[in-house]
């Protein structure tokens, strides 16, 4: 059994906690939160031991690994402390507020030789995994252009009073929403190394951006567009998509549906010339416990398996999340200048 502790039982934390609670190889050995209400509910209705001080939890509870699901501004300090204790870490996204903080954690996690992962769950979505396979196989030929998008209804009126509305805590559409798309582009195509221009617009929020639009340049030389807006109430929930144009065809993909156009019959097995449509139902891996989407269970499972040594710690490790932080910083700097 892998003994896991969790810090921050908010929206993502409670979802991780449920998945961990149902995982056959995991024992939840501690949950830390600053809310008395949350701790009291856990005490009354669950078997998890609660803590109101994370340092106490990591020293007293006999943990192998810790999930960190607190506002981003606390990541640097808390993750460092956990790494100092030599424990494996799963941190929520985005990774850190600054590139320097992230670099320190990447280096420390390497020195400590512990498993490290960040919660960019789209990499565990079947459709996006298939896009990666098609691109890596060279089936789209030379890449000409891409468009990465995400839309959703997070802030659709002028009333907000939590940490997501505070830029110093890691709030805002760039940090919260666009980070997912940036991370996906980094993974599927090539690392983003340049920002040719960016707009961050606020529609309802006073202190943070509600949308981000940017022209991005990849290390491969390919350029493309980022378009993200969390104030779009025509979406029921967050919808992330990527469109890629290449010399041999085109891909349009979101978390549910993959549409691929091939110019010729030179395409992967299971595909033919012209349009192909595949659904997540065909591409998703089954899970033992489902909550909100297979990808949430799969990413937790991947982390646990990495600790057990059965998968490499390559997908969503600190270093890859740090690359995403670097792009966030490039976009911010492009606006400042």
């Amino acid at each position, binding site marked *: 059994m892998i003994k896991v502790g969790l810090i921050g039982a908010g929206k993502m934390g409670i979802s991780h906690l449920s998945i961990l609670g149902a995982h056959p190889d995991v024992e939840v050995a501690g949950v830390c939160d600053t809310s008395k209400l949350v701790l009291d509910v856990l005490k009354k209705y669950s078997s998890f031991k609660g803590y109101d001080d994370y340092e106490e939890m990591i020293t007293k509870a006999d943990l192998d690994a810790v999930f960190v699901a607190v506002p981003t501004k606390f990541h640097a300090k808390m993750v460092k402390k956990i790494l100092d204790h030599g424990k494996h870490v799963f941190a929520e996204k985005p990774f850190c507020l600054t590139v320097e903080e992230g670099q320190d954690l990447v280096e420390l996690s390497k020195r400590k030789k512990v498993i490290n992962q960040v919660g960019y769950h789209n990499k565990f979505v079947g459709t996006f995994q298939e896009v990666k396979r098609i691109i890596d196989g060279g089936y789209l030929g030379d890449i000409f252009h891409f468009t990465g998008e995400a839309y959703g*209804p997070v*802030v659709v009126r002028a009333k907000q009073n939590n940490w997501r509305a505070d830029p110093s805590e890691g709030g805002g559409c760039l940090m919260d929403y666009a980070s997912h798309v940036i991370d996906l582009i980094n993974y599927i195509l090539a690392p983003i190394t340049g920002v040719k221009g960016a707009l961050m617009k606020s529609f309802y929020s006073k202190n943070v951006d509600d949308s981000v639009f940017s022209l991005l340049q990849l290390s491969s030389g390919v350029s493309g567009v980022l378009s993200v807006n969390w104030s779009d109430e025509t979406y029921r929930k967050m919808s992330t998509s990527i469109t890629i144009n290449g010399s041999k065809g085109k891909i349009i993909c979101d978390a*549910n549906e993959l549409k691929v156009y091939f110019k010729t019959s030179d395409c992967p097995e299971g595909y033919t010339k012209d349009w192909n449509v595949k659904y997540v*139902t065909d591409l998703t891996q089954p899970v033992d416990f489902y909550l909100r989407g297979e990808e949430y269970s799969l990413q937790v499972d991947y982390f646990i398996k990495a600790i057990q040594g059965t998968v490499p710690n390559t997908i969503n490790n600190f270093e890859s999340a740090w690359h995403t932080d670097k792009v966030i910083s490039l976009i911010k700097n492009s606006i400042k200048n």
Partner: protein
Amino acid sequence: MDRILFGDNQFFAVNHISDEKSRAQSIKFKEDKAILRTLDYAIEAGIDTFMCTTHDRIANICEAIRNDPEKYKNFKIFPCMPYAHKYANAVTELGVMGALKEYVPGNFFGSLFKGGMAYLSKDYLSIMELMVDAEMKMFKGINTPAIFLQNVITDLLLGLGMIDVLKAFHNYVEKKYNAEAGFITMNLPMLLNALEKVGIENPIICASINKVGFRMSGGKESYIEVLKTKKVRAIAMQVLAAGAIPPKQAIEYVCSLPNIESILFGASSKTNIFETASLIHSFDEKFSAKEVVSN
């Protein structure tokens, strides 16, 4: 429960495979009368139970049903609560406490903040009860013989091991609404096991059950085993696996399984509603005839 239950995903742009289809559905069902017309088709096809989420717009549908008692005299609704995106978006925007303040009715949180933790900790379950009451308001005067907890909440509590809360929901809807509790889940075998442990016998459970094993967590085999050997009133949903299985094959498979009391499906067009209902009837006949022969 009726053999066929009519679902509501199509009315609220819930499409598990295509955002484009979702948008098309949003446009098609923009007006409440489009929803009511589709319900009429379902009734015409002999389907008298509407299983729906507690979306704001359902309140208008309920109003129309109350206003025409003759037409809807055999009509039943199975409410499924909560409409999770409403709360999830509120939690993202306002935080857990902010969302509770926004949605728990009455003065409860006013008194909570005055009385402090000691007051609250006596009775978290009464928060749950107040929220159930708030969601049930729109169904006043309508026959709701079963009330369901949505899978996102059922499964969240299941993973957290908070089965007592599921039991409290079960007991409350029985006591207050004289209704049976139902649980929607993506984890049928695990849930049934947990419910049995807290003494809930033969529960109503609505789960994905389909030929390709889509969203049948723990594997299709474990589901079949449960259906064959355990006491459960199963409702099969996602029988078409979001369109991955052709309707005829999909329905044939589900009708061939033992112990499935009801089949839930949603459709937008009259043709699809009639075709699916008639497929269920014809495969039911085929398999019941087989049973008679083998007995």
